[in-house]
């Protein structure tokens, strides 16, 4: 049993019926691809082409194609890896953490956010694999005896932890996402007209019929998957941060890294979710499902995590001074005032100042401003990783080996190329898969308080809904908006 305050904004606007939800979400799956989608896909495919070319150059000529040097052995590749993994975190946060906290507004955004997670992790995985130089030997990261001799992998190494963390994270997210998709595939299957669509969605829907027993098990599975995904998502960025924190490089060797990285990941992830959602809701006409309230709520999460990140930056500086370690202090002074000061300034402006604007209600509820903010945050978070990685490395203990790092065209090509890969996957998803979890949105439909058409009286065949005690979790007083057509 649940009470919904009448003061609360509705979760779904426009007085939708169950059938309307199906119609609105299936519309773009069933319609022929529109021109805007085709145009967007062509741009994404163009960037995917750049990616493939850059990968070809990297593999054919070797890692020398990148701007790395003896001092700066990690640069754009790891920056991009951490950036992409971080973006992925918002999807799991929405689908798992917000499920456990019973935040019902997540229902209309979780599908697309989870898809974003999976595609972001695919993009992230490209970087360490390419950095291996010989990706066809990538299976060496698994606990197989070294070249099938006698030596095992080193379980004390954070880089190996990363292998386990990222593989677990990717497969668990994929399974979670797919299991959620099965009932919606069944909906599309039962509406499908064409023979190809019928077979394709029948295969995808795994024979789902929506029987009460299946739903009961499905809910159990979702809850447990959410329960294991919550610590998982926290562990993944913790382990990513340990790639740095367990080293002895000044600027990396800090205990604050795990929570600071997790907050940063959620921060950048929500920014990316906002960017994608603001476009999706307009292009697919889903404004009634992804409402301005959703945008405001996501903005608030962005503000909180952004503030945590801001506090972490200041704490790092304080601890560098407080530690009285000369090298640690230099690493931080060099970050802020050294040759990469512009990257540091970009990071501070984008990540510390920008999210504070969200305190203003007008900004939080403004779609154009939110869109701009979300992009600025993603740029800032990219710079954060760049600052941590490159400025800590480029001036090491030995001044004779101090260098500057500059990316080559191939570095840039791979990075913008992964953006192409990401958007190609996302556009294909948005066209062929239901972007909103129909089944879940239908469960919250009655809980939404709305000014739209509501229950208008008894219709011809259904008797009055029972107004007796509510034993089934539906408040008798809940506005009923299911038969607006009658």
């Amino acid at each position, binding site marked *: 049993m649940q009470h919904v305050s009448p003061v609360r904004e509705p979760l779904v606007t426009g007085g939708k019926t169950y*059938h309307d939800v199906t119609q609105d979400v299936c519309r773009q799956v069933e319609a022929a691809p529109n021109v805007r989608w085709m145009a967007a896909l062509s741009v994404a495919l163009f960037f995917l082409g750049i990616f493939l070319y850059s990968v070809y150059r990297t593999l054919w000529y070797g890692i020398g194609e990148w701007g790395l040097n003896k001092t700066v052995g990690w640069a754009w590749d790891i920056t991009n890896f951490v950036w992409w993994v971080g973006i992925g975190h918002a999807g799991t946060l929405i689908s798992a953490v917000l499920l456990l906290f019973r935040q019902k507004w997540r229902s209309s955004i979780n599908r697309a956010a989870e898809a974003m997670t999976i595609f972001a992790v695919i993009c992230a995985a490209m970087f360490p694999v390419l950095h291996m130089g010989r990706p066809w030997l990538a299976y060496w990261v698994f*606990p197989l005896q070294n070249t099938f001799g*006698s*030596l*095992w*992998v*080193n*379980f*004390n190494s954070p880089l*190996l*932890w990363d292998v*386990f963390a990222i593989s*677990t994270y990717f*497969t*668990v997210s994929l*399974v979670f996402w797919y*299991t959620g998709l*099965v*009932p919606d595939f*069944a*909906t599309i*299957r*039962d*509406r499908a007209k064409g023979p190809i669509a019928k*077979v394709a969605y*029948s*295969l*995808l*829907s795994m*024979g*789902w*019929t*929506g*029987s*009460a*027993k*299946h739903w*009961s*098990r*499905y*809910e*159990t*599975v979702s809850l*447990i*998957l959410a329960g*294991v995904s919550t*610590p*998982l998502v926290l*562990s993944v960025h913790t382990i990513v941060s340990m790639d740095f924190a367990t080293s002895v490089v000044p600027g990396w060797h800090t205990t604050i890294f795990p929570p600071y990285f997790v907050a940063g990941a959620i921060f950048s992830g929500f920014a990316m979710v906002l960017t994608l959602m603001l476009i999706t809701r307009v292009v697919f006409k889903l404004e009634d499902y992804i409402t301005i309230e959703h945008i405001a709520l996501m903005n608030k999460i962005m503000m909180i995590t952004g503030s945590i990140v801001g506090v972490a930056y200041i704490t790092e500086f304080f601890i560098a001074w407080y530690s009285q370690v000369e090298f640690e202090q230099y690493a931080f002074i060099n970050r802020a005032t050294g040759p990469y000061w512009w990257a540091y300034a970009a990071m501070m402006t984008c990540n510390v100042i920008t999210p504070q604007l969200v305190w203003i209600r007008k900004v939080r509820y403004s779609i154009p401003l939110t869109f701009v903010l979300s992009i600025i945050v993603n740029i800032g978070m990219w710079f954060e990783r760049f600052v941590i990685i490159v400025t800590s490395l480029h001036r090491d203990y030995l001044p004779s080996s101090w260098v500057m790092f500059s990316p080559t065209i191939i570095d840039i090509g791979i990075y913008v190329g992964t953006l192409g890969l990401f958007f190609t996957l996302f556009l294909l998803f948005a066209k062929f898969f239901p972007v909103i979890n129909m*089944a*879940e949105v*239908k*469960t919250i439909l009655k809980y939404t308080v709305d000014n739209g058409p509501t229950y208008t009286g008894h219709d011809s*065949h*259904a*008797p009055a*809904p*029972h107004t007796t005690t509510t034993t*089934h979790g539906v408040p008798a007083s809940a506005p*009923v908006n299911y038969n607006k057509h009658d």
Partner: protein
Amino acid sequence: MTKRFALGIFDDEDVLMHAIENVRAAGVKIHEVFTPFPIHGIDDALGIQRSRLPIAAFFYGMCGLAFALWLQIYMLGFDWPMIIGGKPHIALPAFIPVSFELTVFFTCHGMVITFYTISKLYPRWRTPVLDVRSTDDKFVMAIELNDKTDLNNLSKLLRENGASEVNEKEMTKN
């Protein structure tokens, strides 16, 4: 084998919930209920037992943990001990991340595979359903018919309890 079903079609889940109670109280056995989304309390109303999947999940998790610990302790401690950074061969704190990840990995995949297997969900070329609207906006109560069933009485019972339609359908189960 071909089975015949009477299908009570409902427009609203609250009506359906009451209908389930009344139909069961009238001594009619409900074969299955198909709904477009999960309804809270429907498993109790239908007398579906609570799923034991959480127990299975816990078991898989423990298997994962045991496997991870064995993997790391056997490989680094016994099969080929190496001194890494002057630390002990079996450095348990350093084994925490991989042990945790494998626990989650086994829990998730074990449970999901079990879920699909026991629910008999697997890719099919065609999926016959009793009423295609049950994945859209209708709630379908299926009651199996045999030679002795009085269809008129059953139809009346369903309509009295709020069914907007009562249909009859044959389904070949393999």
